[in-house]
């Protein structure tokens, strides 16, 4: 019996060590993943900023084309 315990002692120790390493790895991984999820959540505000910028740029482009055409008309009228 004592021989079995002597043989199994190192195995138990090795398994315990492995289990602890795994737990550390898991904790580390989960921390990095939650940081990743936070970054994903922030993408909502980036989306809004991009959307507002796109809408503004559309208006600016529409006005620019209208002005350009008006200028062209004036130039053609002046000639």
């Amino acid at each position, binding site marked *: 019996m004592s021989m079995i315990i002597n043989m199994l002692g190192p195995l138990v120790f090795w398994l315990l060590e492995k289990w602890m390493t795994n737990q550390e790895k898991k904790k580390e991984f989960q921390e990095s*993943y939650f940081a990743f999820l936070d970054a994903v959540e922030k993408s909502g505000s980036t989306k809004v900023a991009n959307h507002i910028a*796109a809408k503004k740029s559309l208006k600016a482009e529409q006005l620019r084309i209208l002005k350009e055409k008006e200028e062209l008309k004036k130039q053609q009228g002046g000639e």
Partner: protein
Amino acid sequence: MRLICVLFLFISSCTSYETSPVMDEEMKYERDITMHVSMLNGNSWTQYYLINGSGVMPKADAYKIKVYPPGKADMITVTSCHVNKRTPNPEKKSKWFKKGYYEFEVPFKNTVDAENLCSFDIGVFEKDKGRHAWGLIAISDASRYNMPATMKCNGTRKRYNGTSVCQAKEGLIQGYEFKEKVSVAKVVGCEIANISSDQKYSATWRFVMPRGECEVFFVSYDDPIGKVHQAFLYGYGKMPIRGLK
């Protein structure tokens, strides 16, 4: 014998913890969720339409979205310019889980989203294993954006009425073709330069796919107020690789 049993139980609980590939917060991953979307028009729901990763749905009163995650999911998020929702542990709520997919409803009529017409991002997460997948749905409203375009995106050719979605690897050349000459509205970070023409106005546009999500407007030279095409460009950096151990 008892000792051996205890050891066996201990060993079986010690399977090693495998992490997924390292995630990069800055990385833009391909949108690749399979979604089935049904629209509510008045009192009736339409059939389900398939969207692979990204796509456009016409304006409706509400949408039912079936999401087919690539693995098990323990969180689903929906983000638009107005809404940020997440499922409360879907695997524990039987009404959320139906064989192989999760289904949820997104109201649209008379919402801030209907006023703004920005895209919906669908996220599927498996927090324990760190797996994730995304989808992108744009809503088209012909009363606002109605200039048709033929899109040549990531090897496919598709015609869209007024709103389109193009998803491709960032840095690759994509194309849009119109029946008339158009220009593109410039947005910082989403600049589109026409590499097929030096002209400011062109009916054919070839451009290098920008990084991440870009909402871009093509504007008609002949009718800049009345004819506009809304394009959602999504330039991904990586395809998510799944199933690694």
